[in-house]
């Protein structure tokens, strides 16, 4: 039996390799560095690694290869755009994570134990969240560039496992945080099982695990369609779980609420880009010719998701839960880009993912600022009159909400407009009508928060707005500038995306 050494294109893989290397350094730092120097070293290593990876992605932006890693990884225009989006979102999320106020001093200690109190008092803050973030980012970069089912599954687990842990790191309400982490883990494992089951069916259908093999089988026909359909359905369960589409969404409000807010920001924004990236690739390449089979399924899920997310968000009294349901509704809007199945749909989805991710991180960054003596205040009733107390913070939050609502001159408008028009062109009328109607419903609760902040008198209950640290300010300002710039001058970035957005097969 002969073995041949794997041929790897290290240049194209370098962003992921850099991140994994940085994560390993982070583990070493965590183990050996003195506690005084640890936080700043971890932050520098993490940011440095991310920036380096971003530079590397930029360098390979014009390269295309289906065999970056023996046919398991494909690098093309969309891959570069998705990876760059994920890294940029991660960088501004890490700036939020740098505020250790949100994280438990010692995650291994029991909540309320002496050990925990001791760690808090001595300032022995563990910072394992940084290497965990880098591992997750590496998985997220791999997820949308995988081109066979095994790599796709490995990437899925690689991005999920660190996230499960990170969700349980909150300093306040630790039990709720740990509960949400466990829920996320159990349900994630459950949906992964579906994913694997679907992968097995697809292998049974096509006798291949590569995307191109599946595509050839679909184009050639002759296989057992039932296998294909069950394969697509179960694989989709795994993917739809990650993006939080109804009815696979149930984890997200609990986890968004329980997790430390910087982690929620990272998870909500970056995971969505990665998962939708993978979904777009597999649907646009492997399943494109079996459109008849999955369009009805995805259409129904998209409509249910956006209507459900928008409706239930109205009833929310907690800002993080409201944003969670808003994120469910946005998953529905993004599914219209998958359903569109044309170049315009792909471009619109890529723009939407980037714009939405940035806005999401900005919105959660604001949430981290509104606090009282016991930590963050997420009860919406206590946000009353925020506009009078801290006009800048409230104005920034209003900007993000207007973008979520899709009001013109924000990135959200351009995103919604382009994704709906792409879907409309492709003939998916029903989903566009449902999208526009649920956008209108959704606008109601976004604007209600603005009314609450600006046109209601403040209640004196100790809620105050933290003076943002310079790192948090960078995140907020950057997000706000991008949100508005993409709304006012979308043309350059739309052209940039348009030039790159073609999947190679």
């Amino acid at each position, binding site marked *: 039996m002969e073995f041949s050494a794997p041929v790897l294109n290290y240049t194209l893989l370098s962003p992921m390799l850099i991140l994994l290397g940085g994560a390993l350094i982070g583990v070493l730092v965590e183990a050996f560095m003195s506690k005084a120097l640890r936080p700043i070293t971890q932050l520098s290593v993490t940011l440095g690694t991310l920036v380096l990876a971003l530079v590397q992605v930029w360098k390979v932006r014009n390269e295309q290869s289906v065999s970056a890693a023996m046919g398991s990884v494909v690098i093309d225009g969309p891959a570069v755009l998705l990876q760059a989006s994920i890294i940029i979102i991660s960088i501004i999320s890490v700036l939020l994570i740098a505020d250790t106020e949100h994280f438990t001093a010692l995650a291994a200690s029991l909540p309320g134990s002496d050990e925990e109190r001791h760690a808090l008092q001595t300032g022995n803050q563990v910072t394992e969240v940084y290497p965990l973030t880098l591992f997750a980012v590496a998985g997220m970069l791999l997820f949308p560039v995988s081109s066979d089912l095994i790599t796709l599954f490995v990437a899925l687990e690689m991005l999920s496992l660190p996230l499960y842990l990170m969700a349980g790191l909150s300093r306040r309400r630790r039990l709720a945080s740990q509960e949400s982490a466990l829920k996320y883990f159990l349900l994630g494992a459950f949906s992964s099982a579906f994913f694997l089951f679907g992968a097995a069916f697809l292998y049974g259908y096509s006798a291949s695990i590569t995307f191109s093999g599946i595509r050839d089988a679909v184009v050639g026909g002759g296989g057992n369609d039932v296998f294909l359909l069950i394969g697509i359905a*179960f694989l989709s*369960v795994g993917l739809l779980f990650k993006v939080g589409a109804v*009815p696979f969404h*149930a984890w997200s*409000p609990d986890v968004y609420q329980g997790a430390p807010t910087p982690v929620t920001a990272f998870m909500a924004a970056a995971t969505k880009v990665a998962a939708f990236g993978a979904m777009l690739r597999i649907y646009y390449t492997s399943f494109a010719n079996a459109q008849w089979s999955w369009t009805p399924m995805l259409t129904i899920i998209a409509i249910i998701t956006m209507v459900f997310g928008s409706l239930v968000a109205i009833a929310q009294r907690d800002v993080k839960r409201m944003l969670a349901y808003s994120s469910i509704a946005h998953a529905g809007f993004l599914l219209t880009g998958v359903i569109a199945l044309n170049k315009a749909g792909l471009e619109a989805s890529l723009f939407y993912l980037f714009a939405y991710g940035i806005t999401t991180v900005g919105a959660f960054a604001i949430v981290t600022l509104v606090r009282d003596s016991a930590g963050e205040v997420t009860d919406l009733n206590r946000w009353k009159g925020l506009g009078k107390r801290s006009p800048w913070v409230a104005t920034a939050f209003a900007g993000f909400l207007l973008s979520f609502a899709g009001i013109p001159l924000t990135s959200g408008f351009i995103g919604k407009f382009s994704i709906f028009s792409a879907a409309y062109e492709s003939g998916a009328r029903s989903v566009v009508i449902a999208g526009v109607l649920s956008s209108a419903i959704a606008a109601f609760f976004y604007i209600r928060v603005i009314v609450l902040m600006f046109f209601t008198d403040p209640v004196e209950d100790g809620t105050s707005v933290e003076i943002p640290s310079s790192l948090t300010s960078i995140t907020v300002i950057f997000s706000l500038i991008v949100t508005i710039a993409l709304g006012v001058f979308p043309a350059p970035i739309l052209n940039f995306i348009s030039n790159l957005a073609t999947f190679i097969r």
Partner: protein
Amino acid sequence: MTTSNSLVYLIALPLLGATILLLAGRRADKWGHILGTLMSGSSFAVGLYQLSQMLGRSNTARPVEQKLFEWISVGSFKVDAGLLLDQLSICFVLLITGVGTLIHIYSISYMSHDHDRRRFFAYLNLFIAAMLLLVLGNSYLNLYVGWEGVGLASYLLIGFWNQKPAYATASKKAFVMNRVGDMGLSFAIMIAFATVGTVSFAGIKEHAHHTSTAALTAMGIMLLVAATGKSAQFPLQAWLGDAMAGPTPVSALIHAATMVTAGVYLITRSNFIFDAAPTAQLLVVIVGAITLLFGALIGTAKDDIKKALAASTMSQIGYMILGAGLGPVGYAFAIMHLLTHGFFKAGMFLGAGSVMHGMNDEVNMRKYGALRKFMPITFVTFGLGYLAILGVPPFAGFYSKDMIIETAFNAGGIKGILLGSVTLLGAGITAFYMTRVMILTFTGKARWDEEAHPHESPLLMWLPMAILAIGSVSSGYLLSRGDALVNWLSPLFEHHGEHEELLAPIVVSALALGMVAIGVAIAFLKYSRQEVASVAPENVSVFTKIAREDLMQDRFNEAVFMRPGQQLTQVLVKTDEAVIDGAVRGVGKLAMGSSSLLRGVQSGFVRSYAALIFVGAALLIAAIWVVVQ
């Protein structure tokens, strides 16, 4: 077309100034005014450079373009952000930056006691940048951005002393009335996009020939609505008088020389639309004619020097709008009057500011008198502006206003006679109220209070006044010598056959001068021969009362728009509460109901979440079963 990379600096320099001054905050208090003036001045220098370049090219190759970036490109809707500098816009560029810079210099001294002088200069720079964008944009959409920008700057500057509630109200009034006009502009843009498919000047001009007259008329009327809002023309004129709440340099720059003339620019720029839409063009003439009398009549009864000048501005812009409505023969004269007016009206406003400066900010002319002796420079510069606005030869207004009167007479038929008479009558009334201002302010007995110590203004204030006075004297002659301005602008407009002359130019001039003489004589008899009461008399004729009330413009607006509007709002609020809120609450209740139904699902138990996923997957399989069957 020639391209240039330096057009953007015209706008970028003052915009940079505004940005620095606003961001630097109090740190810039010491040098903010100097920076602001320098930025405006360097923009003027760029304008001069562009003019010299333009003069070096042949008549038809003068326009220059600069494409900045692709602004919007969604689907089939594409708009580039681009600048266009042609023979028309260079006139405005030089007026805006030239007069603007002089007013910056004046303001250094005028605002020197104000704590917020730096903010004032920031807004002035912002205004200059926005106004330049307005006249340099190469499409209606780019123009619109500048249009809104000057509206914002005007709002900020009228309400600059917004600690006084009345001033804040005045700025809000100006803003709201301008919004009504802005709606017109946005409608015009939408109609253009829907019917022609483009919003650029060049594109619409090219397609104007095969666009339906109905669409062009609709566009023209909407553009006219926009012009009436920004240029304080009937029926959207009511805000201008209140806008005098702003500091006087603002009144000179924005509410006399530049921004309020944007409507004239809009109509002249849209000549290809109006030439093809005679109905809209006729409406333009009517609006201009009404306003020129309207403003002149208000001017006769105002005791506040700034409000009298504001009424005069309204009336003079009425002349320009009328000129622009007379078609190809009138455009150039409208622009000429606009330029000369820019000099003499800005000069007179600065003069009024100088008087106020010396009189403890008193604006009531009945409390002035005999200031000639105390403020000789102000008297002379103001007097030269006065002669210019009257149209006494050889001062600037004589050339420009006479041409408009002459063109009006030559419009043909009854229309020509009517318009000519209106413009002549306007000239007479103008002479009356301006003479009244002169007499009340500078001659007669002193009527001021004990505390007033009138004195001449410092160099930085009188120098700009002097320079503007030179313009008031000479600009008319320079612009009309050898038809300089008419020939300069002629490549932009389409020419039609020569109109027959109803009256010879010399007759028109004689008639106009006769009217002026009558106006001056009446004012002289009424105010110089009799004692002027320092308190406005109450037992005056009903006409004077109406004129003092601005011809009932506010009452009219309140009765016709405000009260019905308020009632409409109340009805809408009730409808909103009953129907919309009801529906929303219904939806909310539905959502609450469904969420309480779904509470069993969102229970917090992992087992029920997993069950939900399982049910979802099972439903997918069921759906696939249906597809396969």
